[in-house]
């Protein structure tokens, strides 16, 4: 199997005209593979370090090519569902799915590929203050690639930003920060046990990296996703805010409202979505929580 290194990276998407992930109009590179398994993940196809096949049932026209072509006989003749146990993710079905109902996710790219994409939007970045944002998945899981990418992008005068869950080696993060204009780091839950329940890992490493990152002086925005029943209790918000307010450096907190855009994607992967039926907060809840965080002495954006 191919391995990521300083020239090769594994991504699942490149998105242009992104406006919520750093200054101006940006190009977002989504790395594939993440050490966390957040139950609310809105990009579940970003989690595994290998390719995935999605099945978007609404797009299926019932042509039956996938059934006929699958070398593992992993496709059900009734409704063309994939038997995930049998499937080896070879991708044959997706090659013949012209309706784009079965899609393969995950592709290898080189530094040059990404720089080429960035170059296309240079004119737009220039006026808006935009540039490259590396997200995921988890960029820290492919540290050599991401470090080279932000360094080269910086050298070519692109603004650089990264979004991370913070769960990675400090030495890797430190090397990347050297060439970052802006860093976004998630703080999901301050309680180590609860954090582990919700994401699969405890938060010790993340909090340690948060403190160290703040000290470098990089522009750092912590993000608290407000997930109903998971992270949205006042206690957690207050604890997060207090943590941020005590850090030295160029820091602030952003509270992100919960959205259900990931729900469909869980279904496309034939996975259960644990938050099924959970209602989205109204605007006021988010505003109240922002007030609360401010009252804890934290700068909120």
């Amino acid at each position, binding site marked *: 199997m191919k391995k990521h290194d300083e020239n090769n990276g594994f991504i699942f998407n490149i998105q242009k*005209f992104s406006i*919520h992930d750093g200054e*101006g*109009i940006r190009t977002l590179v989504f790395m594939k593979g993440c050490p966390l398994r957040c139950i609310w993940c809105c990009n579940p196809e970003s989690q595994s370090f290998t390719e995935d096949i999605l099945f978007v049932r609404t797009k299926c026209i019932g*042509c039956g090519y996938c059934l006929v072509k699958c070398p593992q006989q992993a496709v059900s003749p009734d409704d063309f569902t994939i038997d995930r146990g049998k499937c080896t993710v070879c991708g044959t079905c997706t090659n013949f799915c*012209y309706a784009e109902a079965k899609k393969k996710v995950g592709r290898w790219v080189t530094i040059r590929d990404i720089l080429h994409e960035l170059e296309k939007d240079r004119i*737009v970045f220039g*006026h*808006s203050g935009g540039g490259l944002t590396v997200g995921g998945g988890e960029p820290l899981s492919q540290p050599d690639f991401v470090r080279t990418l932000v360094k080269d992008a910086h050298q070519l005068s692109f603004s650089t930003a990264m979004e991370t869950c913070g769960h990675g080696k400090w030495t890797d993060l430190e090397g990347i920060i050297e060439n970052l204009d802006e860093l976004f780091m998630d703080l999901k839950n301050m309680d180590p046990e609860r954090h582990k329940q919700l994401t699969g890992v405890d938060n010790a490493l993340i909090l340690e990296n948060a403190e160290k990152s703040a000290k470098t002086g990089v522009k750092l925005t912590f993000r608290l996703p407000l997930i109903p029943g998971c992270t949205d209790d006042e206690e957690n918000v207050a604890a997060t805010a207090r943590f941020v307010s005590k850090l030295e450096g160029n820091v602030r907190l952003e509270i992100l409202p919960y959205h259900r855009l990931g729900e469909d994607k869980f279904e496309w992967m034939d996975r259960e979505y644990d938050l099924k039926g959970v209602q989205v907060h109204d605007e006021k809840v988010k505003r109240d929580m922002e007030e609360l965080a401010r009252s804890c002495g934290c700068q909120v954006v």
Partner: protein
Amino acid sequence: MLPERDKAVLGEFSYDGGNHFPRIDKLLEEYWTHKPMLDIERAKIYTRVYRETEGERINIRRAKAFKAYLEEREIRDPGLQLIIGDTAQQPRAGTVCPEFHSGWLADEIDTIATRKQDPYGTTPEMVKELKEEIFPYWEGKTVVDHWRKQLPEWVAQLALKTGIVDADIKTQSPPGEVAPYWAMILKKGWGGFIKEAEMHIANLSDIDPEEAEKIDFYRGSIITMEAMGIYSRRVAEVAKKAARTEKDPKRKTELLRMAENCEWLATEPPRDFWEAIQFIWLILVGCMAEGNAPSYSPGRVDQLLWPYFEKDINEGKMTVAFALELIEAFCIKTAESTWLLSENAAMYFAGYQPFHTLNTGGIDTRGLDATNDLSYLWITAKMDVPLHAPSLCVRVHKGSPEHFLQHIGKLARMGLGYPAIYNDESAIKMMLLSGGTLEEARDWQIVGCVEPFISGKMAKWSDGGHYNFATAMEFALTNGRSLMNEGKLLGLETGDPRKMTFDEIKDAVKAQMAYLIEAISVCAHICERLYYEMTPFPYMSTLLDGTYQSGKDLTAGGVKYTYGPAFIGTGIADLVNSLSAIRKFVYEDKTITMDELIKALEANFEGYEVIHKMLSNGTPMYGNDIPEVDIMAGEFSDFAYEEIIKHKSFRGPHYISGLYPVSSHVPHGLVVGALPYGRKAGTPLADGLSPKGGTDLHGPTAVLKSVSKVNAEIHTAGTLLNMRLDPVSVKGDLGLKRISSLIRTLVDLNIYHIQFNVTNSEILCKAQKTPDKYRSLIIRVAGYSAYFTELCKEMQDDIIQRTIHQA
């Protein structure tokens, strides 16, 4: 930044809109009570005068008819207005011009009140009068009657019987599409023209045949100028009469002032802001009286009115707030006129749009930024008076103030589809290419939809006919047969595509394009000559530069710069995507054979669902910044340009090219069969330079990059790009910065035009279901705005389908 001014000078208002001048609110309320009706007053008077003047020279007959109309037509009570004079008997009425309209109106008179797109109400008396008195006189005498008889058969097949090329718009309605030479008119006044014409006549002799024709030209001109003077005084009388019974002393003073304005203007040029804006309106009333046509453009209103504004403000005669109120009153007046069209043509120019286009911003004749307070105020007025007319265009350049661009952003994100944004640098090059001096080119303006003109010095007919790129693609694959016309041979026989290489396919497309362009050019020069012979425009000709020097009517080529007519191409994306699909699936991947592809197209993909999905999902499409695809848009639009300028027109040196389709991409779609990239038969084509709706998947920046591959400047009649933005991405101060940075990107990429649609599909769907609740919802249909709920269902569906660039 705006200059600081005292509160006393500014008055009460906000530059950011949301101003509710009580008078303006009431006028708007009133506006909506008017349903579009036919107006036959002009038809009656013109028919009578034509009868009385048979045997006289045609321009004199038309000048006399014009004068009689202005002497006799009804003048409405001013009501609450600050600007007076009417373009029709009642607001939103369509003035019947029998010399143009009766050809089609005689056939459509019983259905015009109930037709799908842009209906006009009628009364039984009106219909009776038209049928008994008016239509019989004009039978066989209209432009269109002559034109139809004079078209050669091969052209008639394409232009009359199938609509594959569309070139009859100029035969069905007067031409319009001019920018009066405001800078000159505002200085001379109508009286000034009369004096000058008399001097010319004194120096000419009717013994010489050429000079005799010129004498007639000046005589015609004098008659129309006298007519405007008479009309001005009549309007003043009506205001005075209203003043006599007016109880409110403040309103009484206003009415008397308005009467004074118009009395003065009967012979003299305007002295202050109010008079100047009233004068512009009266001139437009004259334009619409001579011909119910589109695109009489008020021009660079911020520049033209600036001296009057500055003087009045500095002398304390007027507050900025009152200037804004006058501007808003003017805007409501312009929305009162409509352009009357046949049922077919209304599909092309949907939405009762008169195209009175205003321009603000940009550079001056010396190349310096010319943005002033008025540039902002006209934009503010549009926020306050969100009607479909007037069209508002802004000029931008590298040195446009950031504050101005964000002011534009504030209007753009209201979702009215206004303003249309134009890049000075591109437009100036286009005007240089059209023969203007550098100073003239810098003083360019938009006329109509997206067409750049040198203010007051140009005649071109920016819409001389429409062709589409998709038909050429179809004919190349069918060896000239039309899929939507039972396989009838309507194009060239370019050979069997099954035996061609990819390059040969492209050559076949080009041969078909050349053929379609030849057909339109025949339509156009016959029509131009008929205008010269049958319908000179003595009034409009007076208002343009060059006619008084040459002593010739605009239809005789008398205007300083006469280029065109323009041929407008639509569906470049359809052609490029089709070629891209053929290249990938037939020649490169060899997934299907040409024969299979053609069979699938002939079957409109019925029974070929998998192939259909493969083509629609797998084709690399225009609009996604894929250089090898986008470069074909450049190649084929360049080719169209070269073919078009090859042909000589009747009045000018050659035709010109444009790539703005108004809404012609919908009717043109009806005559085009299935296309290789998965488009089904009869569905709309892509508009202008825009990517095909739903196929641009990489956001607006990729669209801008793709579009920049077209050599926009050679298409001197204009190009067009629509971009839908989601409301989320333009929210707040950050949203304004975002719009501004997109505009600056457009300048950097040398893109000529862009307009933003900020609406979401949800709202549009709701509006489709419950039109009553959304009657003021405006949406851009190609180069202009129309009320969404007034569009027909096909058009609405097309708008909903376009990709939303969700951020």
